[in-house]
Each structure stands twice: as structure tokens, then as C-alpha cells.
């Protein structure tokens, strides 16, 4: 096929999905490459989205379905870009399609195979809050709704035992231990990098006690606790599985100093947390300790104002960098300088860190093999007011180029499609 009709999209988050669907609509063939076994990216981790409180799954699941049903889009999950040669208009790309060991065409997603698997591992997609088996889907409602086997942990695949339990349970014969990693060579006219983001390892932020005190959570752990398809099915409980928090502090700008920039979205989602926490935990008291508030959209500030009226007490700190969390019996003690730089203390059961957004894992390797530059923070460098990277024919969209919300990510992916179609027309 003529490479001018084929586009490679790396990353299947909201930006990658939007770009793929648009390109398909324009009659292009798309390869959508995703390193995880499921598509959807970080958006599907959130229960609801700011500021309309739309259910995220309801927003994204139809998009995921469209992607999976689209004849123009080849979805490669558990896959990776290995090599890129050539130039805009005709890139030669090598891709590894890792073995899933489960036949996507045969599997119905009935979920009979994982309970029988004898091996467990932490589920990092669920922020390590629960465990999963060696054959697993990351969460209920994963799409494609097909499990994957981790070959390093599977007793049969890592050679430790002749275990065959999952294959025996599957009446569709979908388990295929003989599947091998595949190397694909394809040509593409253009490439979109939409690899999303990671968050700062909160243990790095010394004075906040994450990892030391059980009561300290990252925002993304809370996302999963709030989500109805999360590990607690939306029930808010402390790590011991019993205690229900009575007082919660949300600490803004956690790690901002460490990364050196504002992460753009962390002022918005605490309003959403306040909304759902007060709904789910009757009588809970919520404090937001903040330095600056940043609401970059016409509709965002309003919800925050409403939250502050009813659902959360906002405490301004003149210097958030001096905020310290310590443990006092089963409570957390938060010490911080207040507006007048006076020392203040607050006792809470739970502290939620609105942690900084960082470049996604593996972006460094990817940018190197794509031969595109990164900015000083490690994000993909884009030209000003544009989605062009430093290499012709390669575009970037979403958080790969810096922290941004869903709206801004979608805007960039739509802009990238605009640029590609413009480029292919000339």
C-alpha cells in the first residue's frame, strides 16, 4: 500500500484515539500502537471528568469501541516501536508486537481464566492498590476485553512448571502458549507521538511522607478508589480496608518544586474529588491547602467556587514548599505556613497529594529512536503554536509535550491530524 495512506499513532490515550478516528474518517489507514494490553490511556482511570462530572467511562468507552471496530485502524496492544528510518512521507518503521498468549479473535472476555491462575502480582495500573494474576486484565471493562499473560511470571512460560490451568478453563481455546513476539515492518507517511504522561514518584517529595505513612495517598490512587470499576468499586476506605476517613486534606502543587513547572490540571480535579468524597463519605471534612490556583478554561473556575462554598475549606499557604506531613497516632499532622506566614497545624485522617505530571516512562528511548528533541523538562519539544516536533513528519499531541487536560490533548491531536492531512494534500 502507498505509505501516503498510512499513519502511525503511538499511544492510545484520548489524544491517540481521537487522532486515529479522525484519520480513519479521512480514509487513511492507521496503526495504533500501545505498550499496555488495553487502550484508553489515563482517562479511563478517572471515574468522572472535570468540570461536568461526566462519567469518564461513558465518554471514552464508545470511542474505544469505535477504534476496535474501525476497519481502517489496526490496533497493536502490548507493542513497541523499535526503529524508524526514512523521512516525512515515507518512514520505515519496525514494530514489535509482543505475544499476548491469548487469541483476541477467539476470546470472549468471560473472565473464567484468571481466578484459576496460581501466580499473583501487584497491579500498577490500579496504582498498586490491588493484585492481579499472571493472566489478567487491568480492570473491569478493559478494552479490548481480552486478558494477557505475563510471560515472566506465568509458571508455564517462565519454565518453572507445566501449569495449564487457564488453558483448561477456557472453553473457547483462546489461550495460546505457542504465540511468539512478532516483528512488523511497515511504511508510514507520518507519525503522531501521543504517549501521555506519568506522575512524579511521590516518595521523592521528602516532607510529604508518601510511602512512609499509610494515610498519604496520591491523587491517582484516589482516582481509582473513587472509580466504580476500581479496586474498591468506588467505596472510600483507608488502606486497612476498614477505617473511613473523617478529615481529608488535599495538598496542591505536590512536587511542583521538584519538577520546576505547574502541572496545569491539579487545581481542577480536587474540586471533583471534593464533590464525590462528600457524596460518598457523609460528613467528611475536606481541606485544600494551596498556593496558586490555575483554571485555564472559561468553565473551570465556576466549579471551584462552588466547591469552596459548600464542600471544601480552602487554606492558603504562603509557602507550600515548607508544608510537612508527620504521623501522630493514627492521624496525620500537617504543618504549614498560613497566609501571614504563621505556623499552622491540621490533623487529618487522609492526605491526598496532587502530584506533578512528568514525561511518560520510556519517552526518552522513544524520542531517541525517533530522533526528535525533548525540552529541558523531558517532554517532547514542539514548535510554538504548533504540534510539529523537531523532525518533519513527526507530530506530538497530548501530555507527551507537557502537562495538559483532556480538552487540550484532544485539541492537539486534532491539530496534528490537520497538519498531516494538509501535508499529504500538497
Amino acid at each position: 500500500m502507498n505509505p501516503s495512506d498510512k499513519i502511525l499513532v503511538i499511544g492510545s490515550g484520548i489524544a491517540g484515539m481521537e487522532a486515529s478516528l479522525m484519520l480513519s474518517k479521512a480514509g487513511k489507514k492507521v496503526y495504533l500502537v500501545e505498550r499496555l494490553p488495553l487502550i484508553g490511556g489515563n482517562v479511563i482511570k478517572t471515574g468522572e471528568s472535570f468540570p461536568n462530572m461526566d462519567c469518564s467511562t461513558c465518554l471514552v468507552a464508545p470511542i474505544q469501541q469505535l477504534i476496535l471496530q474501525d476497519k481502517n485502524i489496526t490496533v497493536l496492544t502490548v507493542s513497541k516501536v523499535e526503529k524508524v528510518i526514512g523521512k516525512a512521507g515515507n518512514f520505515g518503521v519496525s514494530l514489535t508486537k509482543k505475544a499476548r498468549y491469548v487469541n483476541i479473535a477467539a476470546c470472549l472476555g468471560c473472565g473464567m481464566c484468571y481466578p484459576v491462575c496460581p501466580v499473583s502480582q501487584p497491579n500498577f495500573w490500579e496504582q498498586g492498590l490491588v493484585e492481579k494474576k499472571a493472566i489478567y486484565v487491568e480492570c473491569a471493562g478493559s478494552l479490548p476485553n481480552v486478558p494477557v499473560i505475563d510471560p515472566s511470571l506465568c509458571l508455564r512460560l517462565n519454565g518453572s512448571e507445566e501449569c495449564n490451568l487457564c488453558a483448561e478453563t477456557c472453553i473457547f481455546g483462546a489461550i495460546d502458549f505457542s504465540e511468539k513476539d512478532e516483528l512488523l515492518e511497515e511504511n508510514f507517511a507520518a507519525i503522531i507521538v501521543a504517549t501521555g504522561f506519568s506522575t512524579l514518584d511521590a516518595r521523592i517529595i521528602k516532607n510529604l511522607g508518601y510511602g512512609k505513612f499509610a494515610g498519604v495517598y496520591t491523587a491517582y490512587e484516589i482516582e481509582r478508589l473513587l472509580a466504580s470499576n476500581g479496586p474498591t468499586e468506588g467505596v472510600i476506605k483507608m488502606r486497612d480496608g476498614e477505617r473511613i476517613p473523617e478529615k481529608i486534606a488535599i495538598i496542591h502543587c505536590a512536587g511542583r518544586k521538584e519538577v520546576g513547572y505547574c502541572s496545569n490540571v491539579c487545581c481542577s480535579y480536587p474540586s471533583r474529588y471534593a464533590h464525590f468524597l462528600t457524596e460518598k463519605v457523609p460528613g467528611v471534612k475536606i481541606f485544600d491547602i494551596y498556593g496558586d490556583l490555575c483554571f485555564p478554561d472559561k468553565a473551570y473556575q465556576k466549579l471551584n467556587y462552588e466547591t469552596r462554598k459548600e464542600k471544601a475549606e480552602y487554606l492558603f499557604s504562603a509557602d507550600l514548599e515548607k508544608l510537612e506531613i508527620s504521623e501522630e497516632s493514627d492521624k496525620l499532622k500537617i504543618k504549614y505556613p498560613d497566609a501571614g506566614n504563621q505556623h499552622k497545624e491540621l490533623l487529618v485522617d487522609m492526605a491526598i497529594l496532587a502530584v506533578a505530571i512528568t514525561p511518560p516512562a520510556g519517552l526518552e528511548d522513544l524520542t531517541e529512536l525517533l530522533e526528535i528533541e525533548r525540552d529541558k523538562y523531558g517532554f517532547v519539544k514542539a514548535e510554538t503554536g504548533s504540534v510539529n516536533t523537531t523532525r518533519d513528519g513527526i507530530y506530538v499531541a497530548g501530555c507527551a509535550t507537557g502537562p495538559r487536560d483532556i480538552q487540550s490533548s484532544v485539541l492537539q491531536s486534532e491539530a496534528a491530524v490537520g497538519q498531516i492531512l494538509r501535508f499529504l494534500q500538497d
Partner: protein
Amino acid sequence: MSDKIGIYVCECGPNISGRVDIDRIIAEISNLEEFSDKELIVKPHKLLCSVGGKAFLEEEIKNNELTHLVCAACSPRDHDTTFINVCKKTQLNPYMYTIVNIREQCAWIIPDKEKATDKAIQYIRGGIDRVLYQEPLFEKQLESNPDVLIIGGGMAGLTAALVLAGKSRNVYLIEKTSILGGKAALFSEFLPHQSDIADLKNKIKEVENNQYIRIFRNTELEKIVGFLGNFEIVLKQNQTGDTTDLLAGAVILANGYELMDARELDNFKYTDADNVFTGLEIEEMLTSQGKITLRSGEKPRSAALIHCVGRKEAGYCSQVCCNYLLKTAGYLLKQVPGIEIIDLHQDLCQPHTEDQAYFESFKEKGMQFCRVQEVALDGNKIEYVNMAGEKKEIAPDMVIIAPAMKATASNEALSALTSIDLHETGFFQEAHIKINPVSTKTDGIFIAGASRGPCDISEAMIQAQAAGGKILTQLIPGEKIIPEVKVSEILEAYCTGCKTCLDVCAYGAIYFDNERGISVVNEAICRGCGNCVGSCPSGALRSRHFTNLQLYQQVKEALR
């Protein structure tokens, strides 16, 4: 031709067959008394959605010359499209098929196999009676015009024009004033992470020289009717009053913003004689006279920057002011070495990775930053309350304020012409705030730049490219537009003309025929959501493929 109804029951492996009695379904459905005058073909299949299952279905439809098809299987969310696509390969009109969900709604939720089977049979009976009352529907194909009308010659409009214009697509760029470039054309510099000012000038030149872009200066939109691919447009030259008729397939509204007049606020009192300037006025001054001076022509020795002017009243953060006030501080620091500058802000909004470092560079230059709870201005006298609650007064030589960006009056006018909704802030309302930010409720009309909300130059450019991208995917030269088939229709005899449907239609697909005193559905715009059907008090609206009769028959049989 007599009715020949094919009913295929999917076992979904053990998912359905394990929990409902497939044999009993086949036996009972085959012998239904109420359909004894019809020919029923009832068969099970292991997995209808599999490759083999689809081939089987296709053969069955063709060989038996089916007139109606019922698939008793899973949720329509999973495989409705799958079976519709099978129909499309055969003589059977896809609207003569229906899916019955006996998996999620029967097998998976009812532990008792007999009860689950009973319910499945009832549902299938409902499906059969529904499909008998379905009517074949046919897709229409409409010619489409690939040209695009862009309203506004600012950065967003220019960028969009350059993304779109080409051999097979003309762009009509209309600008209310006589100059291109919008407010950005007043700037002497852009922010470091924004596009270069020279870039804007090049863009204007490029647009002016592009043979596929036709520029209409001093021109405004007079009238627009139509839908994606077919808009009839009238433009009006605002000096001569001459009108121009155009056809276009899509429209981008990129008509920019204006600044709130701070003097409308209770706590901001100043006159044109005072040395109080908006950030934009400073840019204008710098561009026109090359330097920043007081009204007397003297150099200012001290200045105060006031952020968030009118933010509370406007109800949103304008997001660009923190950065551009720093930019003006930069001008001052360069021109008047030793000038004392104090920056009075409520919050600092620095949404881009580069912003914080930019801000810190000014801290290093000795600028004083002060967070305030309240601030009031009288001439050049400023009274503010800092976060510790202390009241302070200062009177710098020059005061530079950042009033909120707000929607222009043309948003309202364009909203009236296009029926695109305005957000409560007066900016245009996007189709979905998160996942569809440059589209609107009307297919074919897009929004970009500061008329859809406060944004900086680079964001306006991204939005313009996004709107361009949307149009390039939706309006492909030579391709026909296929509107929704399952639309609503109005039965004239029943319509009382109360216009309730006009209010509930989210797509502007219903118009009122004054002559006949009734509402009329524009089928090219209707998406078949059914809002109007539910709201019509006199039952004059009917949703094709979801008619009362169809639903009634389905419910009736299901309850028999």
C-alpha cells in the same frame, strides 16, 4: 411477497447456552400461535459474531430470501453493527433487522435457568413483533461543497485558512476591520514560548498571496442557512452595504475577544487622563511610538501591575494575563533601568511548562511580587489588602492592569445567525468541553481562538489547526455526505405549532414554518436523538425506526 422472518439464536459459547435452554427457545419460538400466518425460520448458532457465524447468517438471509431478521444474542453495544454489516452484504435492508439481548438481560442476570429461558422467549417474541412493524430505510447521499468560510482574520483565522486552502478547497476569510492579524497585530513582541511576531507578519503575507484564499475586509456575516457540506451564505461589506452570496461546506467562527472595561467595576476608578493602561494599550503604545511613557511623555519611575481585574465578575480566569503582564514588565525593565515594579496578583496561573521559569526570571530581576486579597484603584492610587490582612496604599507613576478577556458583541450576533449556543460566559459553547472542543452542536460549524474562551496566541493557533483538521476529515472534496437515516419527522396534521421541539432540539434541526404554523425537521441536520419526540405534547413527532407502534408491539409481545 409474504413475510419470511429469520430468528437466529446465538449460544455465545456457554455464555448464553449455559444459562438458558436454547432447545426450548427454538421449539417455542417455532410454534408461536400469533405468528402462525408468517413463515418463521428459527435456528441456533454457536457464535454468531464469529467469522463462521457471520458467513452463516449471510447465507441464511440470501438462501431463505428473508424479509425480516431477528438476532437473539448479546447487547447491541457489542454486535449491533456486526449484524447490520452482514445485512448490508445481502438483499435485506438493515432496518428490517433487530437485535434482542438475551445475554446481559437474561442469561447473565437470572440464576434460574427456566426463568431466564422464559424471559428470553418473551424478549424474542417482542423482537419479532417489532421487526414486523419496521420499515426499510434508505441512506441519502448529498453533494457537498468543500469550501470553508472563516470569520475573523486574527491569528486563529489566518492559521486555519492556511491549513485548509488548497487546490481542491477555497477559503473565504472575512474580517470585520480593514486589517488582518487581529489583536496580536498590535503586539510588539510575543511571549517566549509563543510564536514569533515575524511569524504573524509572514502568515498575513502568505494568506494574502494564497490563490485559494479570498479575503473580504470590512465584511461581516449577514445570513447563513444550511448544514455540513451545504451552507448558503450572504456576506455584507460594512461600508458600502454590498452583499456577496457564497456556498461553503463548513464555517469556522474565529472572531476573537475584547477586554472588559475595568471602569465598569466598582473598585476601579480612573479616567483617560490618568496613567492607567491596560496591557493591550501598552502594546499599542509601544508599537506606535516605540517606547513606553506616561501621558506627559515622561518615563515612569515606578509601576504597578494589577492582575485578575474583573476575574470574579467574569467568573473565569483569563489565563493569559499572568504572562503578558510579565511581558510588559519586561519592556519596562529594558527601557527604564532601575524602575520599581510591583506585581499585585491573586493567583498566578502558569499552565505551560515554560511559564514558571519565565516568572522566576522576573523575580531574579528584582521585581516585587505581592499576593493580594483585594485591590482598588482610584486614579493611580492603589489600595490593597495583602494575604496577612494588612491594608496598604501605593501611588506608582504608572498602573498597568489586566482586565478579563471577554466575548465580543459579535458572538451574540453570530450565535443568532448560526444558532450556535453561547456558554454562560458569553463565549461559544463547544460540542463537548473535553472530547469535542472545536466542534459545535451543529455539524459543519466550528469554533477556534478567543471567541470560544480565553486563550493565548499559541493555543489559538492549535485550535485553528484542530478546526482545520476536523474539516479536512469531515469534508473531503468529491465525497458525498450521508446524513442520519433514523431521523424524526413531524406529522403535519397533529402539530399545534407550540415550538416546544425547537427548544429541546440540541442540533438546531427543527425550524418553524410560519406560513403553515407548524414545526419542520431538517433531515440533513437531525441526528435522531428523539428529544423532540419525547417532548411533543401532541404526539406529532415520530422517530423513524423507533415509532410508537414498533415500540408498542415490542412491549406488547414481551408482556404477553
